[in-house]
């Protein structure tokens, strides 16, 4: 196990290194750079002409006169120093900007994962044991609709309904008085009040998919000989269900974690933009538009790290949950 984990870890570090190179190139594909937009804005606002010397001075100050590979090395160096470069747009070290936002992204994603399973497992078991009942049909219809409504649209619909019928604006994660306040008990309580909407929105789609998977596997399992035998021997229905078939049917759910968690991080990006959440997504979006290179690269790096952690955790969990999967198989 230790050997397997070490091997995986080395592979992950290599993977992340490749990701930094590719993202760094991709985000610099758009024509122009942060300065060209900045200078044109300066000229529009102040009305005065920005001289060639000023441009050169700014370029040198921001390190934009360097070729791309040197800028990459400069950024990589700052990653190892732990400050992740300097944000042109916010005029602050990236570390100060993204810490809290990434923590919130992570919190929302973890909570959404938990809620997804809390919704999916009971409903999935119910619709498999009560096949073709009214509840099963409702779950199936909801499953299809949940797969078809993109999460950002669901967020819009909820915002609209809350605004129309209750006159409240549900966007954001904090009430206005807490936005810039330091962390306190009051702020945490306020956060907990705002979390349900984004968490529910993010959980819906994933839960819909998981219910379908769980229902299908559990139905297969319940028809098997050993279940029939156990029932014939008089094992109670509850034990009959939870002792083996549910455990077997949970396996695909655990392996689903590998895509569910990344999907939540990724889905959070656009839901957060719609709901105005102070998570990493909206900041990434803005930094891409303003071509704030180091900020973009750092956020993408962290999102990838979170994704990769999700996949790895799911792989390890699967080995623990299902003893039939041996290390050799996990390695392929």
């Amino acid at each position, binding site marked *: 196990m230790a050997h397997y984990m070490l091997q995986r870890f080395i592979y992950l570090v290599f993977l992340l290194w490749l990701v930094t190179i590719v993202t760094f190139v991709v985000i610099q594909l758009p024509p122009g750079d942060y300065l060209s937009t900045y200078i044109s804005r300066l000229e529009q606002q102040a009305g005065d002409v920005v001289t060639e010397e000023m441009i050169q001075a700014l370029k040198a100050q921001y390190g934009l006169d360097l070729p791309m590979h040197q800028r990459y090395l400069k950024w990589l160096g700052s990653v190892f120093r732990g400050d992740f470069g300097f944000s042109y747009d916010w005029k602050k070290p990236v570390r100060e900007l993204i810490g809290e936002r990434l923590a919130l992204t992570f919190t929302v994603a973890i909570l959404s994962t938990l809620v997804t399973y809390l919704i999916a497992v009971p409903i999935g078991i119910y619709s498999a044991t009560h096949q073709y009942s009214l509840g099963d049909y409702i779950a199936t219809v909801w499953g299809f609709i949940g797969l078809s409504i993109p999460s950002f649209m669901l967020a*819009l619909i909820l915002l609209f309904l809350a605004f129309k019928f209750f006159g409240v604006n549900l966007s954001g994660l904090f009430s206005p008085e807490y936005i810039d306040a330091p962390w306190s008990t009051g702020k945490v309580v306020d956060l907990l009040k705002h979390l349900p909407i984004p968490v529910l929105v993010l959980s819906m789609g994933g839960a819909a998919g998981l219910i379908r998977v769980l229902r299908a596997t559990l139905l297969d399992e319940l028809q098997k000989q050993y279940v029939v035998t156990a029932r014939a021997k008089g094992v109670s229905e509850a034990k009959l269900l939870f002792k083996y078939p549910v455990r077997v049917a949970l396996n695909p759910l655990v392996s689903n974690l590998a895509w569910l968690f990344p999907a939540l991080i990724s889905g959070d990006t656009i839901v957060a933009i719609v709901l105005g959440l102070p998570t990493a997504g909206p900041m990434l979006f803005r930094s891409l538009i303003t071509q704030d290179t180091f900020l973009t690269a750092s*956020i993408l790096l962290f999102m990838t790290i979170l*994704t990769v952690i999700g996949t790895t955790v799911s792989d390890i969990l699967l080995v623990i949950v299902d003893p039939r999967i041996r290390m050799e198989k996990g390695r392929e």
Partner: protein
Amino acid sequence: MSMFAAEEQEMSQVRTVQVPGQEDVYDESYYLASQWQLVWRKFRKHKLALLGMVVLAIFYLMAIFADFFATNPYQQRYPEFALSPPQKIHFFDEGGRFHFPPFVYVQKQTLDMKTLRREYTEDTQVRYPLRLLVHGYPYKLLGLFETDIHLVGVEAPGVYFPFGTDEFGRDIYARTIFASRISLSIGFVGVIVGFVIGSLVGGVSGYFGGTVDLLIQRLIEFIISIPTIPLWIALAAALPPYWTSVQVYFGITVVLATVGWTGLARTVRGKILETREADFIMAARISNVPDFHIIVKHLLPSFASYLIVSLTLGIPGMILGETALSFLGIGIRPPAVSWGVLLQDAQNIRSVAQSPWLFIPAVFVVVAVLCFNFVGDGLRDAADPYK
């Protein structure tokens, strides 16, 4: 392929003997049916899938003959009707008299002096009956035939906005129909691009195995490990602002396909690993058939039905991707319209609360995606008709 078909026919003959006692035995046509006929028979039983297919057929017809279905030109601005709600269809006039065909009233704009909001009231003086195949604005059907016939509409000087108008007074119904041209086709084009890359890369990976397989699998893992939507946003933001609508369209397609091909490549690889040891592949190899030819002509067709299933299930993801990107303002750019572009107007929750009809294009997105999911589900059940 011909060899494969012969094999199938032989198998179905064997079955006639093997499964006596089943009712189907008396139905000769079951055993004479080709694989695709069997698939269709099984597909027909999935009622939701059939429904989905019918709805999608209507959607695509509307996209192709958009001018015929629209009542007003989709870029035309009617400032005197800005943000007007959908016009109600009436059967009874003010005096309670029944009329057929039904009719609409034209709405009059008034300004509420307290809130400074535009408000619309129906002008009940003049009735405008809705007519089928009415003469409206001139257009070229399929870009070839000049005509001015539209499916429904009212005669001038009346106007008819079935879904209301946006802030510039443009007909949302017409815009939704024209937007479906981009939104519905981008899924197909994207899936086809992804299909070509995915089936070739997956084919090579599964067929040759070894180091090539290892490298390709690591590449796929690498692409999957970058979160999808941030990657889409980064790539879409990289499209130069001076590109024309057509260039942006293909750019977005490529962006969506860059991520989309990986899933298909994995499916193809898995299937090829299953089939490559089969006798008919061995026979082809012994006959000195080139490797590329074996992959494309023998291996891929042998599980074509599975490919079609994963293609169908890939389309909704692409449609949603385009909608999301355009919604954020980095996908399709106005004046070109897609469903995502139309939904940009619905971004501000206050304007939606005042004019809920701005949200109607979202209904089309959801229905289209839902139908593709139904059809994909039905195809998945029908993919292996011998089960």
